[in-house]
């Protein structure tokens, strides 16, 4: 992947510490506009830390994070979110005591729900209509994941950061989620997606970057990775092979 003009998000030499430990050791990464970039790698490689650093939830100690020409380094998380970046964390970040409606409402602009946006989201996730006034804590894991993604896209976003959305889901739920991600992809939404399930990665990814020990060790087009079994084995090893 080259640093082309269509880069929506660019990380250059990003180092992040958590407590006394350095987790990211100079991450260089690009997410191109209108494309789905898969961030792959084994557990503990630094994928979640990368997303959290982009959101400002952990501060980068060194390096540049540039979103559509604007540096994010000095911005606080709410400012970053208001630039149009939505984050779906690994634990989904659902407010269990609030209803589905209230969870969604929190992510809307101050005017509240815009009917076309709401219709679009509810068409994509019809389950939410049924559970609209239920406590979000009462949803199943898959339903919570749907809610988390629906909440992220209830307003038009310029970039989605999604962390392992299929983790722990049943195959049926994974199928539904892939369908939703493909719809977002068809709408040209820019997505940086952390995923361990290679089937999901090959279904939705345009580009990929593989992380190991806090660095990006390989980037390229997803099609090239899908076609090259030896590269898959070399880069992703057992952790991905298990999911293939």
């Amino acid at each position: 992947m080259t640093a082309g003009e269509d880069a929506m998000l660019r990380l250059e030499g990003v180092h992040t510490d958590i407590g006394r430990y350095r987790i990211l050791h100079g991450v260089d990464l690009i997410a191109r506009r209108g494309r789905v970039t898969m961030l792959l790698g084994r557990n503990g490689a630094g994928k979640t830390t990368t997303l959290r650093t982009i959101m400002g939830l952990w501060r980068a100690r060194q390096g540049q994070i540039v979103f559509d020409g604007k540096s994010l380094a000095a911005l606080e998380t709410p400012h970053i979110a208001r630039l149009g970046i939505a984050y779906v964390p690994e634990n989904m970040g659902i407010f269990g005591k609030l209803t589905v409606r209230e969870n969604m409402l929190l992510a809307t602009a101050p005017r509240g729900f815009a009917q076309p946006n709401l219709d679009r989201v509810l068409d994509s996730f019809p389950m939410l209509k049924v559970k609209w006034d239920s406590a979000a804590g009462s949803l199943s894991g898959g339903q919570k994941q749907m809610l988390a993604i629906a909440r992220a896209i209830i307003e038009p976003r310029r970039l989605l950061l999604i962390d392992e959305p299929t983790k722990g889901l049943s195959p049926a739920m994974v199928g539904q989620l892939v369908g939703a991600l493909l719809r977002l992809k068809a709408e040209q939404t820019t997505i940086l997606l952390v995923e361990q399930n290679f089937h999901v990665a090959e279904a939705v990814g345009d580009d990929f970057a593989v992380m190991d020990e806090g660095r990006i060790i390989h980037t390229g087009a997803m099609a090239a990775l899908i076609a090259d079994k030896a590269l898959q084995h070399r880069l992703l090893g057992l952790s991905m092979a298990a999911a293939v």
Partner: protein
Amino acid sequence: MKGSWRDLLRRWAPYALTPLIILVALPAIGAGPWLTLTVAGLTMGIMLFLVASGLTLIFGLMDVLNFAHAAFVTVGAYVTVTVLRPLVGWTTQTSLMLNLLALLVALIAAAVASGALGFVFERLIIRQVYGAPLRQILITIGALTVIEQLVIVIWGPEALVLPKPASLRGSVFIGSSPIETYRLAALAVGLAVALAMHLFLRRTRLGLVVRAGVENREMVQALGYHIRRVFIGVFMAGTALAGMGGMMWGQYQETVNSQIGDSMTILVFIILIIGGLGSVGGCFIGAILVGLTTNYVGFLAPKLALGSNILLMAAILLWQPRGLFPMAEH
């Protein structure tokens, strides 16, 4: 089906506890004193709720256990004395309208003064110790002492008299049960404040952000809300509520001293623990339970009165170890 009954029971039992205690007390006490004690318990509970609700919100949203909260109760009570002195003409007349107007002015003044002090306190002291629980405890206990001493410097060491307005003295009779007029007024005011708080939390966007923040602060920020600004607002509201509680408590006791806030502290912490730290609904039910228990046990077994709320807390924690309405852990 058996499981669903159990779930239903687990869900609704905390709500049923208060009516159950009220009903059980009826045959034990007898109808006449029961009504008097029930109104007294509800009034005490609602006044405690005003103080405790601010503290539980501050803890729930900010993870700050503010041991100086009692100081804001004290400030509210003293400001009431200061405000009502020049309004003595209004409070000594038997006009209910003028009396209530005087109390409203005092209530607003107590809330504004305590809330403003809360703002300064958050900026100067609490802001330095977010995320450091041990330092929070030390600095807020220290601040409590300092504020109480400042109160003595400003208002003097002697207890001050705060007579009830003329038309709120004495009692009205419901059947053969005497009910103190002031208690009815305090109950009405307390319920109105509790309702306003409920509507704010349930019907407004800011209330929604506060409720979400109690569950998961980080995600609230990731959705674009400046949680620090919400913190300041909640801290001010919490201390303003404490000031209102101090006003009503001081007026109820008819004397105010620098320990008036301290006298509520243990009960307030019991309420927080019973209700579930961070839960406003739990705080309301906990406060009512504590008010009723204090009054019922004080009548039935006066020697047990002091320890009754500790026993209540122990019993509830044995049943629900995280309180009646536990919130998410941060």
